[in-house]
């Protein structure tokens, strides 16, 4: 994609292109910012990332063959930009070895235990009471490579194949990162719940909130 962008950087764009581009950008800005914010975990970085991605998109517009694919294409540029900058900035840590055993972790299974079941429906209660802030913190704690895949699939509704193409990794890697990312996310939530003492009935852990 990088090559495409530079190759067509000087391609002429018409005022009609500009009008079309502006409308598309307006309508997907909340999506773009939402993805950027969860990838960067910082408002200032997210703002820069959105601006840089849109600049690349505009410069590379001629390489977009099917205009109905605009949304996915811009998200790919955004993820690519984030990933290449992250790797430059932090030396590209590999975390594929991490979280292997987390892939099978199921929060549902932890909550759905006989000891908890006597007082109702713990897993539903858990979700009803789950604070957006706590979930956000759990997501933000994920290693970069896992978080990226979770954000693209769960928040941006991208297909595994699109994510694979976008991050230049095999589809099998998308699957395994997704499984590990979700497993780790659920482990974080379970940890948070335990720290809070599953406070509804106090049967688990003795801590007061």
């Amino acid at each position, binding site marked *: 994609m990088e090559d495409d962008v530079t190759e067509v950087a000087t391609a002429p764009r018409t005022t009609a292109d500009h009008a079309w581009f502006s409308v598309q950008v307006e309508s997907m800005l909340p999506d773009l910012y939402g993805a950027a914010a969860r990838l960067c975990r910082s408002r200032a970085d997210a703002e820069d990332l959105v*601006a840089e991605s849109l600049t690349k998109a505009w410069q590379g517009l001629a390489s977009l063959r099917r205009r109905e694919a605009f949304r996915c294409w811009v998200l790919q540029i955004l993820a690519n930009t984030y990933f290449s900058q992250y790797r430059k900035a932090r030396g590209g840590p590999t975390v594929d070895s991490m979280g292997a055993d987390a892939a099978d972790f199921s929060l*549902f299974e932890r909550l759905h235990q006989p000891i908890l079941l006597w007082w109702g429906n713990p897993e539903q209660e858990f*979700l009803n009471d789950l604070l957006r802030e706590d979930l956000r913190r759990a*997501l933000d704690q994920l290693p970069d490579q896992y978080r990226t895949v979770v954000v693209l699939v769960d928040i941006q*509704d991208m*297909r595994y194949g699109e994510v694979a193409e976008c991050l230049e990794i095999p589809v*099998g890697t998308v*699957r395994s990162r997704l499984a590990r990312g979700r497993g780790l996310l659920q482990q974080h939530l379970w940890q948070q719940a335990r720290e809070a003492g599953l406070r509804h009935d106090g049967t688990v852990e003795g801590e007061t909130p």
Partner: protein
Amino acid sequence: MTHLDIQDCEDAMRVLAEHLDRELDQRLDRQLLEHLDSCRSCYSRSEFDRRLKAQVKDLGREPVPATVVDRVHELLRDFALPPIV
């Protein structure tokens, strides 16, 4: 990942995520739905995972700060300047 038939809960839960992500092929998807229809425990887990996924999705819905909106509008104005033809 090899996709054999879904014969028990373990098989079902192995493909649950792909089902929720709409990545499962039709045949397995139908088998999974049949299993979920007849297995209360797997159905509950499926609903739990579905709701959690929806709540994660919701994290992407953040109000766009005014500074971002302004900056994007400024960018779009810049894009309209020459060398446009």
